[in-house]
């Protein structure tokens, strides 16, 4: 079974976001693999281990720095990695990104595609599903449980919804997007880290993928970001201290009479 995992590199979640000239300033950001993509990588490795056969290929789209995210996935145990160069691509337009990823998927070949349910930078959570539609295959998003029957070319997934989960039965090939709870990602082993040094990560351009550059360029993108802003600062609050019974009384009074929320 060929399992393809798409990994995005994003600023660490502890990052304080700064705005520079109407855009998020990423100059001094610490880049990490998107946390939800870690669950996707882990699930791919577990499926391969369970089947005792198969290949896990990790693909990341973006500038040269995304090679670190690919190497991280390789150190965890992925078999191969591919870097798709992000030059000239509208990286904040999910449809453009999905178009490029679909072409990369076709070039790699796949029985199952895994990705995080959303990337914690743009927070769109749509690229994986768009990718499935462009490849004309089914998808299950926000998955917290996955069971793959390779012989029958079918899967069953638990998908998180409001107040519970949906059980989804699906055919392979398919796109599955991972939610926290799907598994507990492993740490890289020393052997894994050493093995990365021997691996060559090929670089693919749009020309390699047969994608028309104009169709995914920022100029024609389906959506574009006009500007980024910080949320308005919150006014300084009231601090209550002292006897718990007294502060509780005062807090309830404020919630009822001042904030009028209860």
């Amino acid at each position, binding site marked *: 079974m060929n399992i393809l995992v798409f990994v995005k590199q994003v600023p660490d979640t502890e990052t304080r976001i700064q705005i520079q000239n109407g855009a998020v300033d990423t100059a001094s950001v610490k880049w990490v693999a998107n946390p939800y993509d870690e669950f996707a990588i882990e699930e791919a490795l577990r499926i391969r281990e369970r089947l005792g056969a198969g290949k896990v290929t990790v693909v990341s789209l973006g500038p040269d720095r995304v090679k670190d995210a690919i190497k991280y996935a390789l150190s965890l145990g992925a078999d191969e990695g591919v870097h798709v160069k992000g030059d000239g691509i509208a990286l904040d337009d999910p*449809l453009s990104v999905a178009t490029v990823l679909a072409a990369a998927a076709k070039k790699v070949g796949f029985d199952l595609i895994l990705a995080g349910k959303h990337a914690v930078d743009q927070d769109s959570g749509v690229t994986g599903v768009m990718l499935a*539609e462009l490849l004309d295959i*089914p*998808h299950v998003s926000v998955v917290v449980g996955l069971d793959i029957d390779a012989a029958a070319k079918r899967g069953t997934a638990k998908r998180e919804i409001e107040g519970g989960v949906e059980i989804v039965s699906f055919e392979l090939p398919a796109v599955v997007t991972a939610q926290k709870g799907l598994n507990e990602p492993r740490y890289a082993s020393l052997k894994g880290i050493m093995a990365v040094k021997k691996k060559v990560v090929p670089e693919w351009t749009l020309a390699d993928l047969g994608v028309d550059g104009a169709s995914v360029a920022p100029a024609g993108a389906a959506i574009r970001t006009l500007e*980024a*802003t910080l949320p308005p600062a919150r006014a300084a*609050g009231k601090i209550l201290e002292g006897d*718990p019974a007294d502060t509780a009384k005062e807090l*309830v009074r404020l919630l009822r009479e001042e904030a009028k929320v209860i």
Partner: protein
Amino acid sequence: MIAVVAETKDGVVRKASLEALAEAKRLAGEAGGSVAAILLGAAGAGEAARLAQHGADRVVHVEGAALSAYAPEAYAEAVKSAVAILKPDVLFFSATAQGKDLAPRVAARLRVGLAADCVGFAWENGALTAKRPIYAGKAFAKVAWNAARPMIASIRPNTFTPLAPDASRNAAIEPIALADVPVRARVTGHEKSAGETLDLTEANIIVSGGRAMQGPENFEILRKLCAVLGATLGASRAAVDAGWIDHSYQVGQTGKVVNPTLYFAVGISGAIQHIAGMSSSRTIVAINKDKDAPIFKMATYGVVGDLYQVVPALTAELARVLKD
């Protein structure tokens, strides 16, 4: 025209869809256009009328055997067939579990842009712009679409207020029969999560516990506070990663992003990734014994004290006051 995909649960249109309808009505009013609702699958007899009373000028109802259970491919085809008739300029979904799953299928099928999880819209020189949180609300992006139509957006629940129903309004119901659609992924069952009645993303009041809860058993005192307030329980990543509570309770950048009217952060220091997930709450109460905890910078009301004393006192006081 602005069309709104109305999501139903057990045949009843969800509140999030009525919220989307209200914003559609406002935007259509400014642009001199009309509003349509797209109803998918089996719906109760009064639901189309209810959509009209909440702002829809037209209601298209797509029905077919393929829509009997949620299946993204069939539902996407149903929306596409309604879009072919209505030819809307704008198409709204609610950013619910189903809306978030369906909107990108539809957008990719129609090869048009999708702005996800939006919290505001405006016409600027005749062009629609949307405001959406990025980095879990640490920042906001203003986005615009290219010339392809419809412009698709999903709208975060709890952002807009449904219009008061106007009983004098009615709309013609336009039925569409959906031909059988081959479906390769289908919902075959449900499991309810134990205990909680309302999802965090829909909750009006949330009580979250953090590292200072010290263990799973102490969440009981927060559950008591929740019971008095009709609130939903949440947790910080520290509490989830410690294994005290399931990840589905997690509020933050790698959990749920919430926007309740009232948020209690109990024993939560206020790590930036937690604050990102709850900063849009209207009123924030922080209870923490460390008066220098960063959460107090966010709090509308901060209580400096031991949560094991403050929370029971608060629960007792609320029980006394709310009983009247």
